[in-house]
């Protein structure tokens, strides 16, 4: 029943230029920044290997979803894209993840400047215990925007982009913790957008939200995908089908299959993918 909406959600609303012409597989979109390419990327937590030789292209201006059972490495890979995972003691990696051709694990790239370009939204919304305004202003302030009027502008624009402005414009100075869960999560998206990132990583952003709040987040991702690269980890396969252009299936630390979302859900090439999306395991 739910699989009927596969691949139609985005297209119904009408797409702009056809993506990845001639191929259903994700290819870099060289017209825009924010293309990610992983090359034989492996990752270890101490002695335990979590990722095995992941090679994938995540094109700019599209939504790519990572699906797979718990512990399959999808979150590890997502968090490797902004090097947050590397902060864990004992973590190491081989291979490369390139952002527009530059290896993000090269010694010359400062993780701080990387994370300005690659924003992140977490499963459990985590606004700072400060005002709504201050939450959004955090990034611009740290990244060198000094002028007050400029920050005002960024805050309003970011909240508008996160579809939150109308709900909070009269209470910008109130605590962010007074918002509902869904609003707090959109605030976290606004906070990430205020940094003007090229890539937005979302780690199960709606798994703790009710269906209405989830729908708002999904609509938001649909809007945002014309502006930046979006990578979303989700446990919810219907969600992956609804929001994403491409879907990657991870299993036991390996990338099993990546394809156009419609293709992957209707005619998966791999048997394990089919078993997973039809609910035979996972």
């Amino acid at each position, binding site marked *: 029943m739910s699989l009927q909406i596969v691949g139609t959600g985005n297209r119904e609303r009408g797409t702009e230029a056809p993506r990845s012409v001639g191929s259903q597989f994700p290819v870099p979109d060289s017209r825009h920044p924010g293309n990610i390419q992983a090359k034989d990327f492996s990752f270890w937590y101490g002695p335990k290997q979590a990722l095995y030789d992941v090679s994938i292209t995540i094109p700019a201006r599209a939504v790519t979803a990572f699906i797979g059972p718990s512990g399959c490495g999808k979150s590890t890979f997502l968090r490797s894209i*902004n090097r*947050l995972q590397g*902060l864990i003691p004992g973590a190491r990696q081989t291979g490369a993840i390139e952002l527009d051709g530059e290896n993000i694990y090269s010694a010359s790239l400062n993780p*701080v*400047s990387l*994370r*300005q370009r690659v*924003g*992140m939204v*977490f499963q*459990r919304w*985590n*606004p*700072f*215990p*400060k*005002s709504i305004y201050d939450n959004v202003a*955090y*990034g611009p302030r*740290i*990244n060198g925007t000094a002028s007050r009027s400029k920050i005002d502008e960024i805050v309003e624009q970011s909240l508008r982009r996160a579809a939150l402005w109308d709900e909070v414009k009269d209470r910008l100075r109130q*605590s*962010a*913790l*007074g918002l*509902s*869960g869904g609003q*707090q999560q959109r605030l*976290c998206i606004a*906070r*990430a957008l205020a*940094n003007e990132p090229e890539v937005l990583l979302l780690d199960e952003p709606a798994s703790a939200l009710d269906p209405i709040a989830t729908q708002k987040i999904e609509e938001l991702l649909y809007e945002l995908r014309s502006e930046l690269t979006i990578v979303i980890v989700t446990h919810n396969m219907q969600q992956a089908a609804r929001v994403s252009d491409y879907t990657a299936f991870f299993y036991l630390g390996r990338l099993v299959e990546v394809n156009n979302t419609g293709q992957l859900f209707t005619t998966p090439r791999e048997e394990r993918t089919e078993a997973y999306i039809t609910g035979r395991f996972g």
Partner: protein
Amino acid sequence: MTDINAPRGPASPPKPAVRTARPSVMQRAAAERTQTTIGRRRVVNVVMVGVTFGAAILATLPLIFILGHLIVAGASSINVDFFTQIPKPPGEAGGGMANAMVGTLVLILAASAFGLPIGIGAGLYLAENRGTHLANAVRFLSDVLNGLPSIVMGIFAWQFLVKPMAKFTALAGGIALGAMMIPLVTRTTEEMIRIVPVSLREAALALGYSRWRTSLVVVLRTALPGIVTGALVAVSRIAGETAPLLFTVLGNQFWSASLREPIAALPLQIFNFAISPYDQQHALAWAGALVLIGIVLIISLAARFATRSRFGLGGD
């Protein structure tokens, strides 16, 4: 819906007719046991509730007695002079403890200036580097330092500060008191930083904050109400300390706010007046004790207030 009275299957044999429902032998025995013991159990319950209630009342009694007696014995000596005058020579009526109050304030400030930065810095280090050998060693030593008798701290300060300088000074007293604050502040800071959620740390890192900046701006800022409380508790702990002051600041009958001179302090003044032979000074000592308790109470209330932050942790 299935009819629960319908026969389950074709092969189910007819059940024997159930006679009137009666408790089994075991059930009747259990009920009888309950009947015979229920009175005793009720009594035990009342007694135990009474005992714990009595203990709860007794726990607050010392404070009530002390406060009551201080008010009876000391309140009559509290007047404008008490807060504005310095002590009169023995035997003369009037006089106050203004210099001792100023002295206590100076000592608290000096102790905080010395103890708070070290304590908070150490706490931050412990929280951010938990598990390392150095952190474990520091944590252990700081717990030992916390249990160090204050008289030992006084002797130590005398040996290493007063003796080399050949002079009793407020500075030596401030450092001795500050050293007593350090372990307390260190441990509360560490605990408060530990309860800052990892997700907040990650949020800051993901926005492009460097590690030290995340610690300072997000983690420390979020933990601040708790740290302020810890600092105020430490201050109220040292405000009434007498033993380290005996060896370091000596006391002073005159006005002085200088760190390089002997200074008056409320606990010392109370001690000196209490052991003097004059009733007049005894009354002032009681009044001084009342004021000292008042100061500690105000600091405790301030600590309570500081924890009620507008954007505190919690919420959803």
